[in-house]
């Protein structure tokens, strides 16, 4: 009963915190320098909205907005949306600059964090904590990149830091963690080396279709970005497999200290083969999904399918393949590391 009461109090506190944060972000118009309007009425292409900040706060203004119904580049606004607007002295009219979306990001993230805390409790809290620290480190690295640091060096640093932090948070400070970190990093290193060799000694990679590559860039710079993507992209799944194998092996050795090396290797293989399939699937679907809108837009403009796949899907497939290579490679590697560093195993 007492436990239930504490749970309810925790839930109420969580709900209150969430609501307060969302309320603050939802109403943060006054902290922006740009003028913001809230849409109160839409009639065809005429939008009526109320200014929320600046000198004319509270004033009602009229805007015109037209859009293509397929919404490829255009946006369709609804009542209740917030828009950034600016006033042109020449035209003596307000025009739309863009949409305010910060509160929607916060809403979705808050829901995710709440679910993690409610379902995962202590582990959920560590996951949220890990995510927040990782995001901060990522932002910090990005700002260093902006100041001119080498992206590959930053990514290597991030990979090592992310792996150590997350594995420490999951397992705590013990031998298991050390072994997982060791096998994770060696596996990431190997896929890094493989892809570096392929990039530099294989056929030259064309970066014309890499989304958002800052222009202008040299092939050398783009190569570094691609290697960085491969390292970070593989990290998650590799870590997952490493942890599974080290924990399974430790469990088995604990339960039966006389276990033979052969039996240990077999059991670890069985467990990891069970999970590797669905994991390769996750890597595939997560990577290729964003290709959908590109494909539809391109094919409606009479591009040939082979051209679209070759150009626009190239990097998705590369990341899928390196991630999957990482999964397959980590299984024997982690097993090797565990058996190597566990003394007293009988050979059989």
């Amino acid at each position, binding site marked *: 009963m007492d436990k239930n009461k504490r749970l309810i109090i925790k839930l109420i506190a969580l709900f209150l915190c969430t609501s307060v944060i969302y309320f603050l972000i939802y109403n943060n118009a006054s902290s922006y320098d740009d003028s913001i309007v809230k849409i109160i009425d839409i009639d065809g292409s005429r939008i009526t909205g109320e200014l929320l900040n600046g000198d004319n706060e509270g004033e009602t203004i009229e805007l015109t907005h037209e859009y293509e119904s397929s919404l490829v580049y255009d946006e369709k606004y609804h009542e209740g949306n917030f828009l950034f607007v600016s006033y042109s002295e020449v035209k003596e009219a307000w025009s739309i600059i863009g949409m305010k979306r910060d509160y929607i990001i916060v809403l979705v993230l808050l829901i995710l964090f709440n679910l993690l805390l409610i379902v995962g409790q202590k582990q*959920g809290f560590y996951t949220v904590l890990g995510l927040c620290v990782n995001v901060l480190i990522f932002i910090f690295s990005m700002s260093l990149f902006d100041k001119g640091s080498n992206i590959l060096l930053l990514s290597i640093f991030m990979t090592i830091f992310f792996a150590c932090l*997350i594995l420490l948070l999951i397992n705590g400070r013990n031998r298991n963690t050390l072994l997982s970190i060791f096998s994770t990093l060696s596996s990431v290193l190997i896929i890094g080396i493989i892809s570096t060799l392929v990039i530099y000694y294989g056929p030259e990679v064309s970066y014309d279709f890499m989304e958002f590559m800052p222009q202008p860039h040299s092939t050398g710079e783009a190569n570094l970005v691609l290697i960085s993507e491969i390292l970070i992209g593989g990290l998650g799944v590799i870590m997952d497999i490493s942890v599974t194998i080290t924990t399974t092996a430790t469990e088995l050795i604990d339960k039966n200290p006389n276990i033979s090396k052969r039996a240990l290797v077999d059991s670890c293989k069985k467990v990891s083969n069970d999970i590797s*399939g669905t994991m390769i699937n996750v890597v595939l679907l997560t990577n290729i999904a964003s290709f959908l*809108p590109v494909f539809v837009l391109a094919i409606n403009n009479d591009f040939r399918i082979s051209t679209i796949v070759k150009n626009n899907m190239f990097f998705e497939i590369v990341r899928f393949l390196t991630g999957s290579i990482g999964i397959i490679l980590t299984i024997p590697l982690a097993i090797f590391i565990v058996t190597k560093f566990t003394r007293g195993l009988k050979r059989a």
Partner: protein
Amino acid sequence: MILILSLVFILLIFLFGSNKTAQSIVTTLINFGVFFSILFAIYFGMNSILATIIGCVIISLITLFYQNEINIKTTSAFYSVLVVLVISMSFTFFICYYSNIQGFPIGQYEIRVSNGYSDEIEVNMMFLQIAVILIVLIGSAIDTSLSVSSALYEVKEHNPNLTKIEVFNSGISIGKGIIGSTINTLFFIFIAEYLSLFLYLVKYYDFVRIINSKEFTQEVITISIAGIASVLIIPITAFICSRKYK
């Protein structure tokens, strides 16, 4: 480059893989095919949401029943995936409707009006964005659900006298153990996929513009909804298993 990497991949599978790994490669290829069928169904005028839902159900069927086998563990996982698919779809629709994250920011692609191409296509990009989110989340939802249902099966097998509530609680604690790695896997794939986007954003945008921009919001919302789905599926799978395992 793709050819060389594929060869390395196949070589490694022959070296270290088992029958099960070979089977999962076939599954992956089929799923790849299903993905392309979704693309073509949309191209030939099928409603994009409908095409995606059918595609997602086929992907779940193949991943669960072909890669593994038809048994009480996989059927429970399948029902859970369906429930989560329905819940996330309504949630995703609501978010996409209000956030305008569909389509492309001006200038992302070579294909744009100023280059003589048309943006007047028959397909509504908002529905397409919902489709993208559903495809991203289906993979991790299947993964989580199957882990919980098979672990729970072992638990029930070893302790047949557990009550429904005890089975449910045990499912939640199994879920707790795997949730962190699922979220992290999604997070790292997401950072890697959009590394060039982030490099672009820090170079040309300031913080305020980044967090309100279409491109950033699109990615964060997509990956967060995938995360939400993979957390949500834990209690749902635990509940369904607690009813079905006897």
